């Protein structure tokens, strides 16, 4: 029987003896019960996430990543060697620094080599990782990365209406919300009559196996193929005049060149994204760092609903089949009563993904803003340094909800997280014999340049790293 894959995260040590460390090789299936990474800015969350992703990819587990602030595209910088030349375009002198870029690159390369070697990673490992993985960055509404046809879920013929109407309806609602947001109208499915109208019209088309292209919906809005919405005649539900206004707005949107970027590029097809190509395990980053807050929530709502739809088409599995990583989940999984478009699919994923062999990893620096009921299934917690009493109390409360562990550990955890050094975490793994340990993540193989701008992403994609 093949040995279950293990993720080499770094070293672990008993809390009382941080000096007595041993390798931390986490069985991949421990991630199936979902992972929460919390810690203040500078605690090393992004580094730990990068290491987790690198290890999952190395274990041939495809990873879908949601990137809010631009850190995850650093995975594009997984250079296959230690040479300074590759790093040179990515080092930036600090204002006032006298060093030329070449010298800085030599220093950075030397630091990287020393650190990776100290963690037992040689050039051969870097080459293997580089050759067996494929990192893609998808940037909805921008061509810095691969543009995304965000409305492809709406516009392609759907076959899900018979098999899985719930998921199909959720995907549709998310896409319609995005359209209404782009029109500058109320995107709330619960409040907006226009949302209801467009959804009903699109659903009618979907049930007939027809696509709901915006052009088709525009025609349907003008001349509705239905007579009633709910119990009301359609003209009473949304008057002819209001429908004409909506149609005009849809037409203006269709004609707008800036809207074209939302309708071109790769199709929103999670299944194909996560399918290995040419023997390479895919790591797909959906980066929305360039969008405003509302656009991010709506686009991610559409993407995550699609993940749920894909998930439900998978068979059950007890091994880690894929990993979904959400960095900086702050604001997207808030406690009741806040309900952004991302919350429903995230809660669904946290509840159901395990059965399908999909692990969810969420990370945040703001633990006050998490729905801990949704996280009650998380079996793996990595808690970095937390500065405020309120943050510590909230995390400890979340852990107690999760594990109901003994009070002494709770108090101890609160105290520990106050004084942790950067790049150290308290690791709580409910599957481990010794659930609570200290984790020092290894150095990431990818060069951590810092948050990447659209221009950085463009540059990184323009220069393939492969040898």
């Amino acid at each position, binding site marked *: 029987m093949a040995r279950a894959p*293990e993720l080499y995260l770094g070293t672990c040590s008993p809390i009382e003896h941080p000096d007595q460390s041993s*390798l931390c090789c986490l069985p991949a299936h421990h991630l199936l019960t979902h992972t929460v990474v919390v810690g203040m800015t500078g605690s090393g969350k992004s580094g730990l996430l990068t290491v987790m992703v690198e290890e999952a990819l190395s274990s041939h587990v495809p990873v879908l990543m949601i990137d809010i602030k631009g850190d995850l595209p650093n995975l594009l910088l997984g250079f296959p060697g230690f040479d300074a030349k590759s790093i040179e375009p990515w080092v930036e002198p600090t204002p006032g620094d006298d060093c030329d870029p070449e010298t800085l690159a030599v220093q950075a390369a030397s630091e990287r080599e020393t*650190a990776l070697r100290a*963690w037992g*990673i040689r050039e051969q490992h870097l080459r293997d*990782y580089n050759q067996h993985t494929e990192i893609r960055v998808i940037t909805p509404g921008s061509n810095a990365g691969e543009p995304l046809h965000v409305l492809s879920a709406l516009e392609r013929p759907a076959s899900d209406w018979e098999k899985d109407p719930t998921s199909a309806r959720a995907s549709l609602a998310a896409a319609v919300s995005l359209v209404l947001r782009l029109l500058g109208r109320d995107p709330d499915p619960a409040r907006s009559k226009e949302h209801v109208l467009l959804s009903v019209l699109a659903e009618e088309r979907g049930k007939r196996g027809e696509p709901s292209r915006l052009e088709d919906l525009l025609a349907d809005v003008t001349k509705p193929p239905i007579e009633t919405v709910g119990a009301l005649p359609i003209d009473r539900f949304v008057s002819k005049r209001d429908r004409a206004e909506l149609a005009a707005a849809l037409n203006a949107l269709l004609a707008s060149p800036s809207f074209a970027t939302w309708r071109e590029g790769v199709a929103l097809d999670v299944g194909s994204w996560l399918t290995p190509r040419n023997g390479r395990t895919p790591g797909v980053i959906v980066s929305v760092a360039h969008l405003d807050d509302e656009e991010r929530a709506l686009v991610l709502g559409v993407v995550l609903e699609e993940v749920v739809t894909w998930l439900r088409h998978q068979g059950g599995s007890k091994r880690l089949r894929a990993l979904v990583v959400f960095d900086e989940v702050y604001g997207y999984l808030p406690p009741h009563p806040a309900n952004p478009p991302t919350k429903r699919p995230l809660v669904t994923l946290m509840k159901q993904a395990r059965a399908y062999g999909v692990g969810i990893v969420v990370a945040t620096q703001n633990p006050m803003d998490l729905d801990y009921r949704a996280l009650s299934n998380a079996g793996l917690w990595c808690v970095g340094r937390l500065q405020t009493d309120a943050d510590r109390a909230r995390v400890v409360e979340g852990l107690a909800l999760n594990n109901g562990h003994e009070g002494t550990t709770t108090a101890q955890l609160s105290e520990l997280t106050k*004084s942790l050094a950067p*790049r150290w975490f308290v690791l709580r793994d409910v599957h481990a014999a010794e659930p609570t340990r200290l984790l020092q993540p290894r150095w990431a193989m990818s060069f951590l340049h810092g948050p990447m701008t659209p221009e950085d992403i463009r540059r990184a994609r323009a220069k393939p790293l492969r040898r």
Partner: protein
Amino acid sequence: MKPNEVSNAQSTVNPNLAAQEPATPPADVESNPNLFHLAFKRVEAEIKAVPTEQLVPINFDPRGVVATILGAYPEIIALRSQLNTLPFDISIVDKLKDYALALGHAHARCMQAVEAGSELAELGSEGSAIRDRLQADAQGLAKRGIMNPKLLDKFRNGNGYKNIAFDVVGLAEAFLDVWDKLGGKTLVTREELEHAREVGNRLIEQLGLREQGPAEKDQASIVRQQAYVLCAHAYDEVRQAVAYIRRHEQDAEQIAPSLFAGRGGRPAVEPETPEVNPATGATGSTSSSGSNPTTGAPVTPSTTTPAAGSSVAAGLPGSPAFIRP
């Protein structure tokens, strides 16, 4: 640009000016501090029109910025005729001095707002001592029927700065009301009463400032940032224009020195890293080993015991797990 203009301009430049660090403000500024306020008023509308999204953290001492610009200004304005030949808004040159003075004013206002309420402790302590002295004298006078004992009861040892302030002012007024009747029957002097009144009033004023301070401080801080952005941007524009017209002489930096000048670079930090064993790639002795799931190749990260107070760089095996206070 005509060559002779360059040559004329050259003769007006003092090449030694750049050596002054920081530049000394001109004499007119030192002799008339009101110039700052007047300049602020002249460009106040422009300052407040700087959008908040353009504000940047102030990473220089504003006083240094003001001094540098005012010090450079005479040499810059001497080049006005040549600068005017460039496709460049010459009014920036004309207003540069006002921008710098206005920044000085905005900085002073900000510092004033920050300092607001800082005298409280000192005034409170002085007010308390005055109250004790006046009460002691007033009690004797009340027993002699010169002062109203019921009135004095109102000024008895309430806690807090507000009580001290009103007690002191009240006692001083009570003494002054009967001053003509006292006829030298007290050790309290008229000057002492005037001083008590002043201390009480200043204490009340400082209390008000403390209460209003945060809002005022925020506002003053924003105005200072706006003034800084306006001034630094204008100076930057002027420097670029000067750099162009003085490109052959290469003395632009001396005429309009960089605001960065003299700040120095970040000191180079040598990361302390453990010695690497070239054979194993590991640092120090190895207490644990395993295999890298990436490739199955052996992995031997260093898991050495960090010495107390160890300075192994963060992120390397064995760096300290906890921040010691």
